[in-house]
């Protein structure tokens, strides 16, 4: 049944994509331009993973995205403040969950400039800062790792949050202040689409995973705050970061007996520097993770303080071929206290964690064919995650992307190793207008 629906949609999309001409929608005769796309995604698993909801696939959906920009002129102060309303709405027909229809706004924000030296953006929006490539040290804004592993477009790695960003522009530096009143956590594998290591069942589980998550109440006291102070000195971008909120993934045990996990309090202090070096771009970023409820490290139910250090380098080798490498180093602080407090059934984490990444990108045919590979490899856990893809702009409005998420690892308890069963290949077709 589902297979037939999918086949029809795939064929329709192909026809629409190949034979359509580009045209633009407008809201009303001379209204604002509405952009968007219709996309169909399909992801097939390599191994039959009987643990998850569907054995053979983990992605089957059609999506309609519409975006527009409005410039309200009434009341008059909005016009003086150069107001801009950004709206991005999505309708998804998700066959994975028995053809449910999901409606969401990825963006619904108002940007204003109340003074020449200040911009304010409020509403539902994506926040991003930091220098890493798929690695985030000082970007504690919510991420959707499920989308990342199943082959959705890169855009979906970042989750929108409700919040306000005030940006103040000074002579030699700028300050961003972000206030997020409604805590939004990362979307992490929970067994339905992707199997993972369940600490309670002490093994790889999928849909049979049954622990629950205690979320912070959405009260004023549980708001998140983030700030960045940054500048540019002759092309060298420096920044200092601050975050106050919670761990974004449920890394704490709230009630071990009853299998409840939670998001402990977290503050992060960091800095970064990025600029041209050795005819490429180099970057360094540092973050100190202050696990506020367990600063001594003696509480085994809450993660210890950590320091994270990221170094990156990217170079263009000519002929549309570029390469990027990164190395992430993490150290758990108060390690001896953690080690002494362990129970026999606890996973033993290493004091030090090393992760390297490689990105290769090559473009062909007047840059209409993009090929790439991103590799994560942890020297500590000896696990690896490969993300190859080929993306072809058949026309300016029709794109076909094929890629894979390939994961290998010896240990079931490691970051990537636990996802070995989740290897998949995906196909995305997008018609843009």
């Amino acid at each position, binding site marked *: 049944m589902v297979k037939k629906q999918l086949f029809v949609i795939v064929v329709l999309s192909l026809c629409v994509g190949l034979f359509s001409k580009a045209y633009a929608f407008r809201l009303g005769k001379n209204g604002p331009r509405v*952009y968007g796309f219709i996309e169909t995604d399909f992801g097939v698993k390599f191994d039959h993973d009987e643990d998850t909801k569907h054995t053979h696939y983990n992605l089957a959906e059609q999506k309609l995205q519409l975006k527009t920009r409005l410039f309200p002129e009434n009341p008059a102060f909005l016009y003086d403040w150069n107001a801009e309303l950004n709206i991005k709405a999505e309708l998804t027909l998700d066959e994975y969950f028995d053809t449910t229809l999901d409606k969401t706004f990825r963006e619904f924000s108002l940007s204003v400039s109340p003074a020449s030296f200040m911009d304010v953006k409020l509403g539902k929006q*994506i926040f991003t800062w930091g220098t890493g490539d798929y690695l985030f040290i000082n970007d504690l804004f919510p991420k959707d790792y499920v989308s990342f592993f199943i082959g959705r477009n890169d*855009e979906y*790695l970042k989750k929108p949050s409700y919040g306000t960003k005030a940006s103040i522009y000074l002579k030699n530096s700028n300050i961003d202040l972000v206030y997020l009143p409604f805590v939004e956590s990362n979307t992490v594998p929970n067994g339905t689409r992707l199997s993972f290591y369940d600490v309670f069942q002490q093994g790889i589980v999928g849909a049979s995973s049954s622990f629950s998550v205690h979320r912070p109440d959405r009260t004023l006291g549980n708001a998140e705050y983030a700030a960045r102070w940054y500048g*540019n000195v002759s092309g060298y971008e420096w920044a200092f970061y601050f975050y106050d909120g919670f761990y974004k993934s449920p890394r704490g045990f709230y009630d071990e007996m009853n299998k409840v996990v939670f998001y402990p309090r977290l503050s992060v202090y960091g800095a970064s520097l990025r600029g*041209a070096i050795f005819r*490429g*771009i180099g970057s360094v970023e540092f973050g100190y993770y202050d696990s506020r409820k367990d600063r001594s490290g003696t509480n085994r139910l809450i993660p210890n303080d950590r320091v994270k250090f990221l170094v990156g380098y990217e170079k*263009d080798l000519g002929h549309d071929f570029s390469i990027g490498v990164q190395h992430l180093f993490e150290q758990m602080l108060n390690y001896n206290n953690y080690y002494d407090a362990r129970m026999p059934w606890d996973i033993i984490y290493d004091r030090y964690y090393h992760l390297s990444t490689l990105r290769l990108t090559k473009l062909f045919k007047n840059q209409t064919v993009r090929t790439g590979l991103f590799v994560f490899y942890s020297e500590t856990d000896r696990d690896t995650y490969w993300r190859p893809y080929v993306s072809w702009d058949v*026309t300016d409005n029709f794109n076909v992307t094929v890629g894979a998420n390939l994961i290998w690892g010896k240990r079931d308890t490691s970051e990537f190793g636990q996802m070995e069963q989740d290897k998949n290949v995906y196909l995305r077709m997008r018609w843009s207008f």
Partner: protein
Amino acid sequence: MRKPVLLGALFVAGGIASVACAMDATEVMKKSNIQNYYSGNDGRAKVEMSITDSQGRQRKRIFDILRKNLEKGGEQRFYVYFKEPTDVEGMVYMVWKHPGKDDDRWLYMPALDLVKRIAASDKRSSFVGSDFVYEDVSGRSPDEDTHEIQDEDEDFYIIKSTPKDPKNVEFSYFVSYISKENFLPMKIEYYNKEEVLSRIIETMDVKEIQGHPTIVDYRAKNLETGSETLMDFTEVKYDIGLPDDIFTERYLRRPPRKWLD
């Protein structure tokens, strides 16, 4: 007794004359560079690129460009706001041009709110998939090549330019036809490493805008791949008073409507 002195003088004069000609070629190219890339203190334009490949398939790239000179013939800033195709709509490409060394480049991707720093020491790669390379859009410094006048007629200087650093470029030399009337290049022929004509850029239309002769229509033909790109400039304006801070992260995230519309 006089003859050798006279002959000597003639040789010296000839020597001076030939040295003067070599200087003229560089002077012409310097003047052309200023005329083509540095007119006014700043400027803006709406650009439409039509790329046609060897099989007749067409692609379009539409963007707005803002430019500011920090010094004539030297440092410049560019701000490029993409409008089409849809999948690049809202993306902004910003360049701090440093003649003689690598430019600083950024790309803003609105869907991710990501300010990406672009590592691109290759100025000869295609600009947005067209037959124009990055340096065609931002300008190639005359100091990068040695120039000599190959030929001259009443309308044109025909100048051959050879790169000082051949490793960094895809051509062995190029020949420019510089108009004597306005010092704009009317045609540029690129010869590849085998010294075969591989790419031609032709000026299709020149308009005088605010006293500056401006190329408003270019055609680039890639003879090796058979593809062709037309680049059209409309609504060109100079000296609009662009502030320096347009070329900062603030305006990557929030395109300055006042200057783009």
